[in-house]
């Protein structure tokens, strides 16, 4: 088993095919989208592959040490141009292929017109612990 991080982006991912901002959807389309996300999580939970899923607020800041006795430097709370992570799922699956398969399913979440968004998701493997036993 290996853990993978599926990352959703507010910004920074390639543009999805069905790219309509959420406030232009109908309320029913929003409900369907949320239900899809919820169903995905509970399905992955039933298969024993779910580890964690969290949503992030859009505001973020880069922070850096700026030398002794000085406060850390930040780029301010509203940096407009960088990548922004919207949230993640952590899954624990048998193979890379399975991780890709699940990310593909998640990317099919319905958006405007009830059609899939084709949202681009980032899939990143977790660094594994060194094996206890070397074969």
């Amino acid at each position, binding site marked *: 088993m290996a853990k993978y991080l599926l990352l959703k982006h507010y910004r920074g991912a390639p543009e999805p095919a069905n790219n309509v*901002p*959420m406030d232009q959807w109908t*309320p029913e389309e*929003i409900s369907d989208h949320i239900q899809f996300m919820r169903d995905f999580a509970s399905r992955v939970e039933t298969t024993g592959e779910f580890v964690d899923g969290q949503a992030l607020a859009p505001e973020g800041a880069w922070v850096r040490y700026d030398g002794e006795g000085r406060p850390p430097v930040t780029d301010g709370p509203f940096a407009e141009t960088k990548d922004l992570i919207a949230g993640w799922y952590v899954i624990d699956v048998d193979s890379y292929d399975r991780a890709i398969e699940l990310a593909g399913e998640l990317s099919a979440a319905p958006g405007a017109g009830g059609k899939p968004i084709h949202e681009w998701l980032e899939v990143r493997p977790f660094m594994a612990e060194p094996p206890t036993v070397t074969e």
Partner: protein
Amino acid sequence: MEAAVDETLLRSLTPAVIGILVRRGADFAAAEDAVQESLLEALRVWPENPPRDPKPWLVKVAWRKFIDATRADASRRRREERLEAEPSPGAGAALDDTLQLYFLCAHPSLTPASAVALTLRAVGGLTTRQIAEAYLVPETTMGQRISRAKRTVADVRFDQTGDVATVVRVLYLVFNEGYSGDVDLAAEAIRLTRQLATLSDHPEVAGLLALMLLHHARRPARKRADGSLVPLAEQDRSRWDTGLIAEGVEILQRALARDQVGEFQAQAAIAALHADAQRAEETDWVQIVEWYDELVRVTDSPIARLNRAVAVGEADGARAGLAALARLDPSLPRYTAVAAYLHDRDGDPVTAARLYAQAALVAPNLAERDHLNRQAARINATARR
């Protein structure tokens, strides 16, 4: 099947037992550890062999655990002998012990997060695992937080009089955390506040208890089956718990009669006015505005001013609400959401839709974000038709 141990009873006895150990001379951290062990022992033993009187049983076992722990530490042997010679306490001091424990756990030297964790553990009798689950953090994280809190208050003298306002603040934080895992923190906060109310006749304790009961009464109607938020005006009022409402109102009226209004009494009064309306249209917004004026007076809180603007919008029309809003700082949390709502009510859908979408971006939780996105979508969908 084995009879289940009454965990609520166990938890309610916890603070008194810790208090008794401390008064007999145990330091706070050691007393707290010993009592936790005695609770585990009770869970193990009581199903088959219930005690006639639970509290002395817990005191006896906890004291033995404490002595065992102390005995293991050779350097403490002399102190332990002195402790064993102490007389057992009289009955009258028990209530004071519990109250002291509340003060200690809410001590101003603790951060709010630590004060909450320590209160749930020492006064509430929850296990570290339960608290960790409720706050969605790993158990080791919560264990560290609690140990640090115990070290922080290690030198605080137990007989020091605390400030009831800090205790009330901590319980309010617990209430607002909701629940996950197997502990409902709102219900736990109510239980602890009820207990505190029997120990202290401070009107703000009563105010907080009334506020909690009135909010808790509305909880069954607050969310749809899919977890989405139902705004107050759209809630199915037949699902409100009338028993809790009646109790909350009665507690509030007794507190208000003492004429020492504080922020929790004022908030409870607002909640009571909402609870009093059979239908949303019957809400007495004029009185609610008056209570917000009172709340602003006692707290000077910008959030209270923001909520007041909403109430003014209902009492005197959306324009008046927007005028009240214009005097506030736009960087306030939920400012944009309130502005969107008032523009919506004022019949300006274009501005409202734009502000709802903007407010969704900065919403503090998913339920609110979804709600705001739906509002924007509703207006935009109507406009397209």
